[in-house]
């Protein structure tokens, strides 16, 4: 549904996007992760037809964002990372304005607005002035605005930023519901555990390009190539950590009570070989297992590796 190939965008000497490539399948929820300045917002604003790329192609639903921006806009709902609302407009007037801006017929607009407000849990706020809503409510109203023309694709740039946990949970639930409705969602966020829960696929960006992409499991496994293994022994955890530290494939070994956390580069056979060596070394091993890293750790590992840290 979204196909981006070799997208490049410069702002003066700053390279915001440098060969950015990404595929998002129809009906999937794809998370875009990256540190500040990685190029997430630039990529999203190009997809939303707000900026032109210097090089490369971006297609939404098969339509090129440069050649057919009007067609792309009809297919796309865009929520920027920062947005304002109009003073002196009621909630239903705000949505009615955007419905008219998409040239939706007047008949049936009231029902549409009612349904959208119900979807985002603002059903009782239709007559409130938008500038008086709380931040969480404004975010949900912005989601409703994105949906006013029933787009197939949603581009959500940090939709839960600056919200309290309760408001975040509400926004998250709405996005989950949109995924169930079959919308294709491209979402960026700094709250990585939440992305892991929401997304079918994630892409980690750094320096204007995608470094790793795939399902959440694939990306967390990819990390930097090193796996976190916990070895629990009856006694002598400190000795074991010192014994492991200089061995091949071990980048870090640290004792933590009766266990040792080992960052080890190697496949399953090499893990088995390491276990045999530890046992042969005279350590009484009670547990030896790999700890699955979460998305946040994978993100730190991947972006750290790209930057040579």
């Amino acid at each position, binding site marked *: 549904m979204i196909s981006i190939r070799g997208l490049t965008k410069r702002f003066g000497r700053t390279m915001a996007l440098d060969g950015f490539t990404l595929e998002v399948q129809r009906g999937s929820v794809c998370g875009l992760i990256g540190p500040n300045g990685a190029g997430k917002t630039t990529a999203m604003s190009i997809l939303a037809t707000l900026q*032109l790329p210097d090089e490369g192609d971006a297609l939404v639903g098969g339509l090129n964002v440069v050649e057919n921006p009007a067609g792309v806009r009809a297919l796309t709902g*865009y*929520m920027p990372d920062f947005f*304002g609302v109009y003073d*002196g407009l009621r909630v239903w*007037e705000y949505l009615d304005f955007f419905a008219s801006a998409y040239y939706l017929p007047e008949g049936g607009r009231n029902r549409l607005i009612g349904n959208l407000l119900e979807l985002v849990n603002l059903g009782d706020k239709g007559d409130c002035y938008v500038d008086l809503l709380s931040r969480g409510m404004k975010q949900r109203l912005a989601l409703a605005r994105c949906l006013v023309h029933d787009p197939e694709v949603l581009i959500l740039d940090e939709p839960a930023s600056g919200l309290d946990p309760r408001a975040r949970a509400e926004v998250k639930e709405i996005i989950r519901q949109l995924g169930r409705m079959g919308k294709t969602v491209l979402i960026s966020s700094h709250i990585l555990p939440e992305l892991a829960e929401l997304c079918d696929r994630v892409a980690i960006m750094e320096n204007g390009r995608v470094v790793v992409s795939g399902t959440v499991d694939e990306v967390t496994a990819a990390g930097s190539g090193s796996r976190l293994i916990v070895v629990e022994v009856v006694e002598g955890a400190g000795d074991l950590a010192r014994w492991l530290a200089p061995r091949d494939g071990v980048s870090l070994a640290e004792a933590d009570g009766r266990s040792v956390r080992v960052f080890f580069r190697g496949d399953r056979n090499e893990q088995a070989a390491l276990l045999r060596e530890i046992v042969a070394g005279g350590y009484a091993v009670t547990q030896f297992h790999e700890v699955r890293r979460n998305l946040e750790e994978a993100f730190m590992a991947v972006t750290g590796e790209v930057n040579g840290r």
Partner: protein
Amino acid sequence: MKLNPVLLREMRQRFRTFRTPLIVSLYLLVVGGLCLGYIYLRWRHMPGFYQPGRSRELFITLSMVQLILLAFVTPGLTSGAISAEREKQTLNVLLVTRLKPLGIVAGKMVSSCAFMVLLIVATLPLYNVILLYGGFSPGQMLGVFAFYLVTIFLFGSVGMACSAFFQRTGPSTVAAYGVVFAVMVGTILLGGFIYEVSRVPGPVPAPVPVISQLLQDLNPPVVMMRILGEGAPFGPGRDLVMPYWGIYSAFYLLVSVLLLVWSAARLKPRRAGGRTTWRQ
């Protein structure tokens, strides 16, 4: 016929607040105060009767005051039209809709001009006071109102263009007032300067250079005075190709339309050839 969505929203926002009747009241207070104050001063010097011949003087004064107020209010209304949307971060969500940039600019422009026209129409009862005593024709009054419409359109589009060019409303407003000042005062000063420089002292009046003639034909106060039957400030006020009001209207309407089209073009995404794009 479907109303431009931006126009409808702007109207809704503008005419709903307490600020609008307040501005109209203040405007009427200023214009009416000046008008009635003038009548009072004239009556005070010759109590008991009012000289009808003076109403022409009053009409000219009132028209000039109104023109100056237009020059102050109109750029102020439009110089934040686009830049304020940027500052409030509402522009991006507007641009991803199916609205065309020219439609957005036109909606905002018509809304601002409608407000100015409301201000002018609200002053009509004051003109009736003068009309009661005669001294000018209804045709001249209509001419002045048509002149106001062209001038509002010009000042409004200058403000709109500044608003599209500058990222912030502050610099946009300063620039808009600068351009309006150049049109109101600069044209006549430059025209007069060129006339004086090219004039050969002597008993025979020197012909007015074309550029000076053109500049005085493009100066709003001069054009308005000529509509009211007053003479040109320098030279006999000859016609260039078409009458002075034709030159004024045609030139400024063309400039205004070009400024609006340019403003709309500024809203379209651009490749970053320079250091920034409009989104920064």
